[in-house]
């Protein structure tokens, strides 16, 4: 043992001695009591399902003016928390303007067939004529949230809805975006527009107990959408249809469905099952109806 070690041992013993002395004044009685608290988060989980054998995605090519596409989509709540809204938006569009492959293409100079146009012009050819909320039926349902007379197109929905990339990411000026929002608010049933994001809520809201997609009572919502490739008989000076320029064009559209939670609530005994599970979180409006 080196001198340093010895010194430390000495010092240690001294400290031990001191602590033994002061130890005498310490309290020797104490009492320990326990209380437990536990928390566990629920899950918010929306699943999109087919209605019957029909797909809910749109994968259609070789369209011509006058064609229409009808799709149904089923919203299923696979979580443990009630879903308040299903906010929908065209999140992103990848556009390909059709051009002749090379000069040998037989119609290479037939410009009226594949003249240039941008994504917004193309999307504006597609009228969203029906958005049927609660297509599964029931009291007050289904509701068509777009009136027959409305002329709302995919362009309007694309420009109106706030996306994660921000307004500036869109190929449009702020005026055009504001215009689309105005159109949306003036045509679509306002109960189904989310004011903050300008997105459409595809879940039913009118029957309190069934608002959104609650788990209790169990609910499934079906949304039906009809999109029409509008028929426009406007002609160019040479007699060709203006719409010819859209031939061969393609848009890959990403539509997002965002399920939201109900607002936080004060938990009281009435909200709880015996085991502490917050039952009212399975209900629309937190069960306050």
């Amino acid at each position, binding site marked *: 043992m080196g001198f340093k070690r010895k010194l430390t041992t000495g010092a240690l013993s001294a400290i031990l001695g001191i602590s033994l002395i002061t130890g005498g004044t310490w309290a020797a*009685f104490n009492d320990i*009591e326990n209380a437990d608290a*536990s928390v566990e988060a629920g899950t*918010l989980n929306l699943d999109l399902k087919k209605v019957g054998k029909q797909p809910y995605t749109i994968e259609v090519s070789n369209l011509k003016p006058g064609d229409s596409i009808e799709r149904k989509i089923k919203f299923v709540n696979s979580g443990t928390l009630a879903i308040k809204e299903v906010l929908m938006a065209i999140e992103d569009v990848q556009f390909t303007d059709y051009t002749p492959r090379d000069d040998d293409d037989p119609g290479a100079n037939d410009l009226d067939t594949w003249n240039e146009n941008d994504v917004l012009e193309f999307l504006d050819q597609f009228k969203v004529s029906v958005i049927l909320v609660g297509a599964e039926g029931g009291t007050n349902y289904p509701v068509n949230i777009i009136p027959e007379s409305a002329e709302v197109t995919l362009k309007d929905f694309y420009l109106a809805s706030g996306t994660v990339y921000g307004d500036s990411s869109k190929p449009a000026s702020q005026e055009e975006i504001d215009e689309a929002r105005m159109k949306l608010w003036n045509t679509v049933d306002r109960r189904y527009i989310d004011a903050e994001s300008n997105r459409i809520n595809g879940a039913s809201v009118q029957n309190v107990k069934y608002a959104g997609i609650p788990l209790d009572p169990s609910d499934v919502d079906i949304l039906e959408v009809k999109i029409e490739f509008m028929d426009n008989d406007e002609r160019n000076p040479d007699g060709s249809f203006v719409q010819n320029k859209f031939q061969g064009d393609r848009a890959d559209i990403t539509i997002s469905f965002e399920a939201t939670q109900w607002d936080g609530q004060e938990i*009281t005994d009435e909200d709880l099952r015996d085991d502490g599970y917050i039952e009212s979180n399975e209900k629309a409006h937190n069960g306050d109806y």
Partner: protein
Amino acid sequence: MSFKKKMSLGILTGALGLTLIGGGTWAAFNDVETTNNYIAAGTLDLVVNPETLFDLSNMKPGDYITKTLTFTNNGSLAIDEILLNIDVEGWEDVLHGHLPDNGENTLEDFLNQFQVVLSSDVYDGFYSLAELSNLSDHKMTVEGEGVAALLPGESFDVTITLQFLEDDTRYPNSRLYEQNKYQGEGATIKLNFEATQMPGEEREND
């Protein structure tokens, strides 16, 4: 009186006589005094009610609950201080494949989603559950060492409000909220209260 009884009485008397004779050789004066003393330890007994404050599952951000903890001195000794220590048990990271970072998070991250407000007549505290779980020997009383916080028979309440905080931060370039990573996660918080005795003192008789 039967013969048998008479006989035993005779023997007894004889024995008594013998002791008297023997006693004669002992010291004859003495004085015996007794004092009655007692020392009895007191009891230090804190009662915390209820033992299960809450046992919540299926919570969502924004939900909150308020409960009251009652501390009672059920013993005979004054309680000097009540010290809180916390253990957290039962947490496990739940992963979510659809989230950009797989929904990975630490226990500390999870506990930071909860805010706890402790309040009583004389005491207020504002913590995240993570901060609370890191406290050691946290004083639930304000009187300080050597001044009784709770006399025998007395009690006081602490109101505890716990809220699952709502945070609208989204993942970059995504509509998904970052808080989604906490879905399905849970933990048990064990609150451990220690009541201490007053310092020793020189005592007079009762």
